């Protein structure tokens, strides 16, 4: 991009701060987060770059990146960051922006997994692991992946066919819907 200059825009930084509670402008690019990140080897943007891109307002690049979905949410970065910046929370805010804008997730399986998980929680108040896995597999068409493991777990009684949900669904749903409303 010879001759072109990236002009930092504070807009994205402000919106991400509102969505994640993270003050990204405190970051001084010491790279400590990246040094400790267990999945950095599989990322296309390093954790410190995510923060820098937010500072620079490079939203398209962030929304298209694998990294926001690849983050394992282990919170190692926030534990070690001298400025207390929670990159997992920033990645969450960016995932939500990507979905809200209708972007195709760079790692569609990860998005499908979270969606299947939450659909299960929403309908019963608790996760039904077998049902959640079935929904995930239908969505991603990965029927054969982990099939032997699944059978082994079924045999050990680790994936009950039936499992109880909660009783007071009305109260639970109200908490759920309330939080959606707030998201806007």
């Amino acid at each position, binding site marked *: 991009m010879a001759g072109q200059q990236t002009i930092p825009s504070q807009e994205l930084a402000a919106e991400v701060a509102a*969505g*994640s509670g993270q003050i990204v402008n405190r970051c001084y690019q010491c790279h400590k987060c990246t040094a400790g990140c*267990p*999945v950095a080897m*599989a990322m296309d943007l390093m954790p410190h770059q995510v923060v820098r891109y937010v500072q620079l307002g490079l939203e398209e690049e962030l929304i298209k990146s694998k990294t926001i979905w*690849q983050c*394992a*949410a*282990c*919170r*190692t970065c*926030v*534990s070690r960051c001298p400025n*207390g910046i*929670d990159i997992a*929370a920033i990645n*969450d*805010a960016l*995932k*939500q922006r990507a979905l809200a804008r209708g972007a195709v997730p760079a*790692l569609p*399986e*990860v998005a*499908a*997994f*979270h*969606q299947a*998980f*939450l659909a299960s*929680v929403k309908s019963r108040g*608790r*996760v*039904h*692991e*077998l049902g959640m896995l079935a929904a*995930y597999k239908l969505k*991603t068409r990965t029927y054969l*992946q*982990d099939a032997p*493991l699944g059978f*082994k*777990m079924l045999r*050990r*009684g*680790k*994936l*009950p066919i039936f499992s*109880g949900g*909660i009783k*007071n669904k009305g*109260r*639970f749903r*109200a*908490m*759920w819907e*309330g*939080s*959606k409303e*707030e*998201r806007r």
Partner: protein
Amino acid sequence: MKLSYYPGCSLHATSAEYSASTEGVFKALEVELEELNDWSCCGATSGHSLDSNLSHALPLYNLILAEAAGNDLLVPCAACYNTLRTTQNFMATASREAKELGQRAKEIMGREYRGTIKVRHVIEVLAEPGVFTALERKVTKKLGGIPLASYYGCLLTRPPKVASFEANPEQPRLMDRLLTLCGATAVSWSHKNECCGASLSIPQPKLVEELVGKIVEAARYAGAKAIVTACPLCHTNLESRQTKDEEPLPVFFITEILGLSLGLDPTPWLKKHLIDPFPLLRQYGLA
């Protein structure tokens, strides 16, 4: 002592043996556990990934139920422990968002969240002085020096301001103390709190095999014959994502090891494991 008990979804399914061994050990120690009535899922990683407010609404729902029950809340799952503590921390900020959520929760639940109870992990309670002394008295079966690697994973100690009960979260020690008390050898090793990638285990199995591979290799290098966890997600992940080039290392729950050494019958728990731990136990005359 009486505690409310929040098993979380995994302990009702994939990790039923963690629940059974936790209940067994606490009963032996005369700590009463009462399952939190009508608890719901805490949302786990998916909750905060796709909906930042949902991530606090679901834990808060359970915190209010626990507060109504009146006792501190015992949480065996590291992910549940972390989300519940994160929400407590969020509510304590008394920010505008926290106040709004608190107000809505009060309208829906008919009860205000006050922050009066503690959320405590199984290890934290077992290592507290009174309980630890009771354990010391009741440990009858010493484990013959079996070398074990105590594994914390990430969410029990991170971030320390929110979640940790350890004096040094980068070098946690309480699980080692519990293992030593049982007559096991707690090996000193490098990957005690490296993330195993559990939240990506289903959508990213190859990556997770790599992470698990490094952890298991480190445990082996330190001389451990098995890994001990205190999290259902770590346990399932470490059991299911070891690749087959070498004999897999068995993975125990800390409560199973304690139960064994308290003289409880561990067979119903250990039978559920994906990696058969009995050959190892027989080798050390423990089964």
